[in-house]
């Protein structure tokens, strides 16, 4: 595969649909959890230079909360839910009534609640994707980090590292209208997974 493989428009459309359906279900799940409407932006799909991936969430040094899952099964890949600190605090307050002490530290209770939220969101993304494609997809136990975006996201693009300096990113932003919750969902299928995804979606390879 070429380092900057150009996907056909039809293939990009199919991947955009993957983002649409997956993130749509995740946003619905979040909306149910919070009992508030959550809006979702139209997903974007693109081969993004490594350097620019963390720019999407404010730059490589931007401190974020990230829930990371390795997608295993027929089509492997990496999935991230990225929240800024305010959004994470806000979700915790509304979901489990945890008030923020004002400290930068996270309690064990907050951490485990974020784990669970990550589990639910990723689970709904993946199960809708599995339904759509008929592929067997399972998430690993989520990993959680509160750190620089660059350090976190670089982890998800290593599989692309051996092929070039770009990774295919299916990106969706979601936000709650007039409130302080916003976040990103990134799905980065491994380079070896495209063929399986396209086949399952009935798109010519």
């Amino acid at each position, binding site marked *: 595969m070429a380092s900057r493989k150009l996907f056909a428009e039809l293939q990009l459309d199919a991947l955009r649909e993957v983002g649409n359906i997956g993130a749509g279900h995740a946003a619905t799940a979040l909306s149910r959890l919070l009992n508030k409407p959550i809006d979702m932006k139209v997903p974007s799909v693109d081969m993004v230079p490594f350097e620019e991936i963390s720019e999407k969430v404010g730059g490589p040094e931007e401190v974020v909360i990230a829930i990371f899952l390795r997608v295993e099964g027929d089509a492997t890949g990496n999935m991230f839910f990225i929240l800024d600190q305010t959004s994470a605090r806000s979700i915790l307050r509304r979901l489990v009534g945890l008030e923020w002490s004002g400290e930068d530290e996270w309690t064990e209770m907050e951490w485990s609640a974020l784990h669970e939220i990550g589990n639910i969101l990723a689970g709904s993304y993946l199960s809708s994707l599995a339904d759509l494609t008929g592929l067997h997809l399972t998430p690993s136990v989520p990993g959680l980090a509160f750190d620089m975006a660059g350090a976190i996201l*670089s982890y998800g693009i290593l599989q692309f590292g051996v092929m070039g300096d770009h990774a295919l990113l299916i990106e969706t932003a979601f936000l709650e209208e007039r409130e302080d919750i916003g976040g990103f969902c990134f799905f980065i299928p491994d380079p070896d997974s495209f063929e399986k995804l396209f086949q399952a979606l009935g798109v010519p390879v």
Partner: protein
Amino acid sequence: MIQDTYIKVGMADLNVTGAGGVLKTTGLGSCVGLTLYDSLNKIAGMAHIMLPSSDISRDESLNPAKYADTAVPELLARMERIGARIRSLEAKMAGGAQMFAFASQNETMRIGPRNVEACKEILKRLNIPLIAEDTGSNYGRTIEFYSETGLLLVRSVQHGVKEL
């Protein structure tokens, strides 16, 4: 006082400087930031290494800065070109974290420690002493390397600033 000139080193990138320049790379996770310094000529070099070995490359045009085994020789050559003497070089490094701590069969999960091992191996082969390191654990780092002094500054969200 003359203001420091910052020179950015991107991901899978390398750069060299003399004359008081400061090399900087941000958001190192499992990647390793490796620096070389010639204190006599005050020449500094930095590589942001992503993967341990170019053997696994399926890239059409190999980017030497990306892999430990190709980045270090390339950095040496670039430093020599601006007047550094290989025999007086000393190395430092930071990064190589394991950002997410959960077990998986996937070998890429252990890429941080493997990057560190690969860097040490190539330094040893080239007879360059490693005089300081801040590697491993599970957090991200941003580093700055001062060509005037050879100081390596390591910044992180959880653990503040360290001087190497």
